[in-house]
């Protein structure tokens, strides 16, 4: 029972009329993972999340959440699930506090102490009516309502898109606490820093299909370290360019700049070679997932362009 994936989605297909939102998407989230869910706009992330929540029915494919069917067993699943939507709208005439009470009432139980701590951490004024809240504050209400629950699965759909950097930090801290408790988190986000800092695994969706899925460690291994160095001596640079695979040199007024993207295994040797050539400056940048993700996203644009 304990090695059953929390979310198991295989070959999901969803059509809205003639539009295809999901075209064979896969997603597997194991217990305890903080799982990033990425992809360009319109990739089908929100559709997948809505299917997980049982809000929509799938055209075909298998979907199990906590071992149950999201449509049929929605109530049982939702007792063990918390959700923050991308666009939060509340009851305009109620105050933030009343909205929190209203939402908590559906679960029947509430950890009041935890909720109060979160309200303070997110700096939320609960006495204001929901119609006077800014977008960011409405989002905070939804976040507090979800984080105050003690459940097995947390689903976040772009939860911090309206939050300031301080609140972003608070959010990340709260997610880490969840992970420490052993809960599972599905985080759909466009903020790559957030994903890199929080997630242990990612699944990348594109045009309704999964194009990449795996642990961040594996992804990092596939990326390259960038070595940038500036030289005055053209001879030394030419020698390095020949010796290091994938090295390029560009000359300008301040000198000759060498840039090399090197796989992890060859980093030590390459850095040693560059340093031995006595550069004016040397910078070694660690593997950036930004570039990896953007490559995948850009691949989408290129593919779609080719298809048209």
């Amino acid at each position: 029972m304990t090695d059953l994936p929390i979310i198991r989605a295989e070959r999901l297909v969803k059509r809205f009329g003639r539009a295809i939102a999901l075209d064979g998407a896969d997603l597997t989230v194991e217990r305890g993972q903080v799982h990033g869910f990425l992809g360009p706009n319109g990739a089908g992330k929100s559709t997948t999340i809505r299917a997980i929540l049982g809000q929509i029915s799938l055209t075909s494919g298998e979907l199990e959440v906590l071992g149950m069917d999201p449509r049929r067993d929605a109530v049982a699943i939702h007792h063990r699930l918390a959700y923050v939507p991308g666009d939060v709208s509340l009851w305009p005439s109620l105050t933030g506090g009343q909205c929190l009470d209203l939402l908590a009432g559906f679960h029947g139980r509430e950890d009041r102490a935890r909720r109060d701590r979160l309200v303070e951490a997110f700096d939320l004024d609960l006495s204001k009516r929901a119609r006077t809240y800014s977008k960011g504050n409405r989002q905070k209400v939804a976040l507090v309502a979800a984080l105050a629950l003690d459940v097995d699965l947390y689903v976040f759909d772009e939860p911090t898109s309206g939050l300031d950097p301080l609140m972003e930090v608070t959010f990340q801290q709260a997610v880490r606490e969840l992970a420490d408790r052993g809960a599972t988190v599905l985080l759909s986000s466009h903020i790559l820093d957030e994903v890199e800092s929080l997630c242990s695994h990612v699944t990348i969706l594109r045009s309704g299909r999964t194009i990449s899925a795996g642990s961040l460690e594996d992804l990092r291994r596939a990326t390259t370290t960038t070595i940038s160095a500036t030289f005055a001596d053209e001879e030394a640079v030419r020698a390095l360019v020949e010796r290091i695979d994938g090295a390029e040199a560009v000359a300008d007024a301040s000198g000759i700049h060498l840039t090399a993207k090197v796989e992890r295994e060859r980093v030590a040797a390459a850095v040693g070679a560059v340093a031995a050539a006595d550069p004016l400056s040397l910078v070694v940048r660690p593997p950036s997932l930004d570039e990896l993700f953007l490559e995948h996203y850009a691949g989408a644009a290129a593919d779609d362009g080719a298809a048209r």
Partner: protein
Amino acid sequence: MTGTLRCALALARSGRMRLLAWPLAMAALAVMTAVSIDEFYAEPASRAAYAAALEMADVMTALGGASGGLAQLGGMIANELAIMVLPAVAIAGVMLAVASTRAEEDAGRTELVTARPVAHRAPLLGAFAPVTASLLLLAALVVGAMTLVGVPLIGAEDGIAGPADGGALGYGLALAAYGLLFSGVGFVVAELARDARSARMTGLAVVALAYLVRVGVNGAGRGVTAGDDAVGLSWITPVGWFDAVAPFAHMRWAPLLVLAAAALGLHLLAVVLRGRRDLGAGLIAARPGPVSAPRRLGTPLGLAWRLARGSLLGWLLGVVALAALMGSQLPAWIGALQQSEAMLELMGMEADASAVTNMTMAFSALLAASAGIGRIGALAEEEDSERLALTLSRPVGRVRLWSASVGVALAGAAGILIAAGLVYAATGWGALQGDAGKLDAFSVPDTILATAVLLAPTLLLVALAAAWTGATGGSPWPAWALLGASAAILFLGPGLDLPDVLIDTAPLSAVGTVPVDDPVWGAVALEAVLAAAAVVLGALRFARRDVP
């Protein structure tokens, strides 16, 4: 179903204004009518004249009460109330149903709630409770108003012939079932439509269609107005079923049971449809549209027209259909009036079409004003949804934008009223061809006069809505309230013997019962001036205040 109770409570809480407004408004109307009728017609002997007057004006049974039973106090009250209650309760049912379901969904609140341990159908079942309660309360209050003046709850009045199982309770049951049928319509339409707006439109169109067919049936003297005891063609529409129950004349249980069964069936259908539907979408899929828009859509007037054209055309269709229906019935109605010419003269009434013309044009004016106020409401929605702020961030002057939207609303209302007048005149004239005697009783110039005169109150109501939304940015509910009050004073005023000051100030009645009486030109001029002032005031406030 898990979570149904909480959903019901949440809806009751957040929707308490609209859930209470309809019952209280109808209750107030019922109490005033009941008290007034009781004052004048407490003596059974005095009621004969009322019944006789009604018999001569078939147009009243087409638009208003058609259930008979006028020998009883309860029957008279029900008859007086009908012209307001029948459309209002149907509209209330549809609006409450859509507001409690699709509107919540469009706002994104249903999504938040269903992520909690809540069954898929719970938001819908939860919505049934407050809406049903509101409609039952409405019916109960109206029954209460009747019993207040002595209408028996069950049975006929002492010493007067009437059904022993009828009475105020029977009326209340019929009214409740009628309202619930239309809330059922609202719930079903909410499952099918693309969004809350189109759900409302479709629901109102169903109400309009049912009402129009009923006008046709009753006006032609078929159905329950045929004079025999049969229900006849009234079986065609739910409004006809309500007519057929006639708790003070016959107390027919069959139509009442049909109303209740249909109401139940529609609610069940909505539950079935909800099971198939994805959250956030209707069962009828949205279709893709054109990729580019003509340049004029990027101008204030072009945008205002594009946004308004759908609803204005819908209203135009409805009003024109009504006008055509009324015009086509003129031969029958004038014939009936001319047969009772002597009687009418005694009562100081003319045996011509002027009463029909007045009714038709007044009704059309109310509908045209509704169309205009509806557009102003849409403008408030633009502001609320922040689309207005987006538009204003472009190089567009505030006053220009506002004037375009308000201009379209005013022009639309005026256009609809004028179209009604023209269609009524044309169909009436056409229908009366070949019968010179009756043709004389119909005056086209009078129709044009009535149309022109009623333009003033119509535009005034729209202008007041514009002033309110221009100044506050909120929905023009005061204009709707004023519209409702004006309608009540107009239709029920004569029967209620309201203080003259009220009749003289209510927009629609202040201008006079044209063309039966001469127009009160002073009132017309005043209303026109007030309308212009309201528009200007609204523009000035909009130019200065914070948006949104």
